[in-house]
């Protein structure tokens, strides 16, 4: 699909290039020869004989080496033959002659993506600056895939959103946007595990992911807990094969006693696994802490209340505003995802920076050093290895 889109753009570039050149031709002997080669090149392109087209353009450039548009067309024929290093060199020559060739910048970015990700960004941005109307949709797409390859999923999300605004009915942009969101989610969870591997949130993610994976073996029922929590949805396990859920594995789940949601979920998990005593102890402890608010069963309300109740002093550097997080949660509840993302990103960044400064660990600097693709949330959060080439898609629900 992408190649078809690029193909249309490529043909457009070639035709426009030739048309503009033909209009500029004069009737001298050399220019007559140029015209003949041009016609032959055009014919070869129509027949998709790109090596032949390349040869015709090379002949023209022997006669008139300063024709930037011909250099661009030659480079495009290299691009169409997947001869990326030669295409890059030719696009660069074309741009040295005429720096206003937005198509050369656009294709240069695409071809750098095929060879050296980091170099793709600048020419792609330049193409937008030169001709936003023509270049922007495709350039945004390539900026996004480059950002994604550089493990900068938040940037990729931004570029694809812009692309989607320009091409709202394009299912391929949606496809890459969905993947970028996945990558961004995995990246956030990975950072979570990097900052504090034993945080309640990490265990919660693990529990939720585990829950999702075994959901088919569960029968879910609602039960009234005598401990005063009100109706809590618990799940009962069907017998599970040994090795998929062991008491040893569950003992690794360490959560904070104050984390209501994590405790409720872990209690359900333990109940299902037959560890009733541990589940009861967790819930009783939770009830003691939440006695003043026994009906707070909605997860988001619990989380929001817990956050706003936390003293400001708990923030490691005193800069993080818990109100910001609460605001983000409310925005999610209202379905204002972009607003939530901006608020939470800001807050997470502050917090992460403080940990980086405190830890002095050079691996934490710069972010995005770890590949998040191919990891389950728990693998991302714990820093373990996952399947290659697949983005994590945790089952965590708000």
């Amino acid at each position, binding site marked *: 699909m992408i190649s078809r889109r690029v193909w249309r753009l490529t043909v457009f570039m070639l035709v426009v290039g030739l048309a503009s050149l033909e209009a500029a031709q004069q009737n001298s002997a050399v220019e007559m020869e140029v015209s003949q080669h041009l016609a032959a090149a055009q014919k070869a392109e129509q027949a998709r004989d790109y090596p032949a087209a390349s040869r015709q353009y090379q002949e023209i450039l022997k006669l008139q080496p300063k024709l930037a548009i011909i250099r661009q067309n030659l480079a495009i024929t290299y691009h169409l033959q997947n001869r990326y290093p030669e295409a890059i060199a030719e696009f660069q020559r074309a741009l040295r002659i005429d720096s206003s060739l937005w198509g050369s910048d656009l294709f240069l970015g695409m071809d750098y993506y095929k060879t050296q990700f980091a170099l793709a960004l600048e020419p792609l941005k330049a193409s937008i600056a030169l001709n936003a109307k023509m270049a922007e949709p495709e350039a945004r797409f390539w900026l996004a895939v480059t950002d994604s390859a550089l493990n900068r999923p938040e940037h990729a*999300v931004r570029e694809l959103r812009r692309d989607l605004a320009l091409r709202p*009915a394009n*299912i*391929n942009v*949606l*496809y890459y*946007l*969905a*993947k970028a*969101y*996945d990558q*961004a*989610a*995995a*990246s*956030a*969870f990975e*950072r*979570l595990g990097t*900052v*504090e591997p034993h*945080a*309640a*949130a990490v265990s*919660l*993610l693990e529990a939720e992911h585990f829950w*999702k*994976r*075994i*959901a*088919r073996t569960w029968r879910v029922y609602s039960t009234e807990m005598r401990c005063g929590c009100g109706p809590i949805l618990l799940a009962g396990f069907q017998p599970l*094969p040994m090795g998929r859920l062991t008491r040893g594995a569950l003992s690794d789940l360490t959560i904070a006693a104050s984390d209501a949601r994590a405790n409720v979920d872990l209690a359900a998990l333990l109940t299902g696994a037959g560890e009733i005593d541990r589940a009861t102890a967790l819930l009783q402890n939770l009830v003691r802490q939440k006695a003043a608010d026994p009906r707070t069963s909605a997860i988001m309300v619990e*989380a929001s209340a817990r*956050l706003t109740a936390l003293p400001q002093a708990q923030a490691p550097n005193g800069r*993080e505003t818990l109100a*910001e*997080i609460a605001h*983000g*949660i409310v925005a*999610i509840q209202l379905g204002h*995802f972009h607003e*939530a*993302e901006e608020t*939470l*990103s800001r*807050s*997470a960044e502050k*917090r*992460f920076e403080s940990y980086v400064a405190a830890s002095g660990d050079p691996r934490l600097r710069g972010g995005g050093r770890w590949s998040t693709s191919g990891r*389950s*949330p728990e693998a991302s959060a714990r820093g373990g290895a996952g*399947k290659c*080439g*697949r983005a994590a*898609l*945790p*089952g*965590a*629900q*708000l």
Partner: protein
Amino acid sequence: MDALLFLGRSYKRQADSTLRQMVAMDADSYGVHELMGRQHEEKTEYDLAINEYQAALEKRRDLAGLRYAESAAVGGATRARPR
């Protein structure tokens, strides 16, 4: 910590929402089948995942990544079935 957790979840929700938009646009596109396959695989619904990956491959036989995904799902299904 909480900000990162909710940020990740927010992105996850948007991924789901985007997939729903894709389904509304063209439920039979290779991208929809691939992403659905991935979701099924995560839930260990390997048979459904394989079906989706195969449907995606019907649309795009040239995608090596899909072949890998399908193989992984088949492997998962094989491991999951009691012997």
